[in-house]
């Protein structure tokens, strides 16, 4: 039989063309939908391994144990998407209070947008407190006072008796006996990296001068961005470019001043956010505002005073230093906490609503679930209390909890939780030269889970499923035709 070489050649070329078309189809995901699965049996190309390795045990028989907090995984998609519905199958044998998952939103300050997978504190509260539900919103009442969530929202009780979980509640916060200051004051404690604080304005301008130095210890351009928020809306933003030295030669820049002045601004609380990387040090802050309460974190870099006093309303206060010369004993409400290892986080749990911290030395990262000030007078607390892993209903004056939370369902002995994450506002990296391959960074957070403690607690995960949704190819083509892109 005569072989027709050309027929074979054309047939094989057709096969190749078919496969190329299939690969393009899969990469473009024309429907705008994609479903990805990692079952811990065989590696997934899209859902990468959970890291860092010292906070996880090796994958074993279709599951993996998380022993430290937090852990991360990367999602690689052939094109960008708008939302991700993340489904996690897990076990929490130690009944750790909160398990969350989220996506990286801001790489500069490593901010993740997280959603709860499980909250054992609320699950426990549901058994003992009165519960009202409307959609995904639940109102927990120590003793029944409101008969509907609407009624509760219309007649909000005292702020100190309400706690929130995964929900924001706006309530105008006004200080009745506040008067503006006639003098400027200076915060002489230098702060490293990003930070945010609340301030209060009444019949005065919002007026801050930040004295900034660039340490030039990393190679990135160190842009400085300041944002001012009122009720979560940005009311002002400004930027300052890098000092011109984009090297990592450690040549400290000269001091530069960034003035933030908003002359006509209505009375109320404002949140000021300084978005910088850890190369930027704020040497001092000059302001005419009376109130400055730093939110959740403060990295005290260099201080002129040997014993810096800090006031806080945090009940779990964490301390960490990266500098061996700054190991020390921290005094909190008169008790000593020894910081005797670098890179290790030390936690002090206080049962008081206001605590005083005295640092022997500077260069300590202080973080917590509340606010920090250098002077008791400066402290203001416009926030509703948030339910976190340190919440104890019996030792708390909280009588109402408003939560956007759905408890996990149990399937074959595993807990299954689903959270919806916004990828449009997430930080993404383009991961190919010509194509649209996109990388997202996810977090699984279990506050209180530590790899270096003596407890044998863990979270076991047996499946990660991600359903992605985005613009379909046809909609995208329509947008291009209409000139919207």
């Amino acid at each position, binding site marked *: *039989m005569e*072989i027709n*070489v050309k027929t*074979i*050649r054309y047939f*094989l*070329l057709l*096969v*190749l063309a078919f*496969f*190329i078309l299939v*690969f*393009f189809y*899969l*990469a473009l995901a024309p429907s705008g939908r994609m479903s990805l699965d990692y079952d811990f049996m065989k590696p997934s*190309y*899209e859902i990468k391994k959970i890291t860092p390795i010292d906070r996880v045990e090796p994958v074993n028989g279709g599951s993996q144990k998380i022993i430290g907090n937090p852990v991360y995984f990367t999602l*690689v*998609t*052939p094109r960008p998407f708008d939302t991700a519905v993340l489904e996690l199958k897990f076990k929490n044998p130690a009944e750790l209070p909160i398990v969350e998952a989220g996506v990286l939103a801001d790489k500069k300050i490593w901010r993740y947008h997280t959603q709860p997978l499980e909250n054992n504190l609320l699950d426990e509260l549901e058994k003992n407190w009165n519960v009202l539900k409307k959609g995904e919103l639940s109102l927990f009442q120590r003793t029944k006072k409101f008969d509907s969530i609407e009624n509760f929202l219309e007649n909000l009780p005292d702020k100190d008796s309400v706690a929130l979980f995964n929900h924001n509640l706006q309530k105008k916060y006004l200080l009745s006996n506040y008067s503006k200051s006639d003098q400027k004051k200076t915060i002489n404690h230098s702060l490293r990296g990003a930070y945010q604080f609340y301030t209060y304005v009444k019949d005065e301008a919002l007026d801050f001068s930040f004295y900034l130095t660039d340490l030039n210890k990393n190679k990135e351009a160190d842009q400085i961005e300041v944002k001012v928020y009122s009720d979560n809306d940005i009311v002002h933003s400004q930027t300052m470019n890098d000092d011109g030295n984009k090297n990592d030669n450690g040549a400290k820049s000269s001091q530069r001043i960034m003035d933030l002045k908003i002359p006509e601004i209505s009375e109320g609380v404002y949140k000021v956010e300084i978005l910088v990387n850890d190369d930027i040090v704020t040497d001092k802050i000059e302001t005419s505002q009376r109130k400055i309460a730093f939110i959740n974190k403060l990295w005290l870099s260099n201080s002129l005073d040997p014993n810096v006093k800090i006031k806080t309303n945090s009940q779990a206060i964490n301390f960490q230093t990266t500098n061996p010369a700054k190991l020390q004993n921290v005094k909190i409400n008169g008790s000593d906490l020894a910081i005797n290892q670098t890179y290790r986080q030390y936690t002090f749990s206080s049962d008081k609503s206001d605590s005083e911290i005295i640092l022997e030395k500077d260069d300590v990262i202080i973080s917590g679930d509340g606010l920090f000030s250098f002077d008791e007078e400066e402290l203001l607390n416009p926030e509703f209390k948030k339910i976190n892993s340190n919440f104890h209903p019996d030792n708390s004056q909280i009588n109402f909890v408003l939560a956007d939370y759905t408890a996990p369902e149990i399937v074959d002995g595993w807990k299954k939780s689903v959270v919806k994450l916004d990828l449009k506002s997430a930080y993404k990296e383009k*991961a*190919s*030269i*010509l*194509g*649209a*391959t996109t990388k997202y960074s996810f977090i699984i957070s279990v506050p209180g889970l530590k790899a270096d403690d003596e407890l044998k607690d863990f979270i076991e995960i047996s499946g990660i499923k991600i359903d992605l949704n985005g613009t379909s190819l046809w909609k995208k083509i329509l947008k291009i035709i209409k000139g919207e892109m």
Partner: protein
Amino acid sequence: MKKYYLILREIFYFLTCSAIILTLLESGWNGMVLAYFNINWLLISWVFVGIVILLINPKNS
């Protein structure tokens, strides 16, 4: 033998083209191919077919 040689030679050309094109696609658009297909299998097949062609090449006999 010549019949098999001709068929395998076409398959070899096909595998060569496929390996080049899929590698280029993967380099330009990461994950486009490797997310669904391991190019290593293509290269193993390519080497195997290449060796067989050399062995059964009628010119060699």
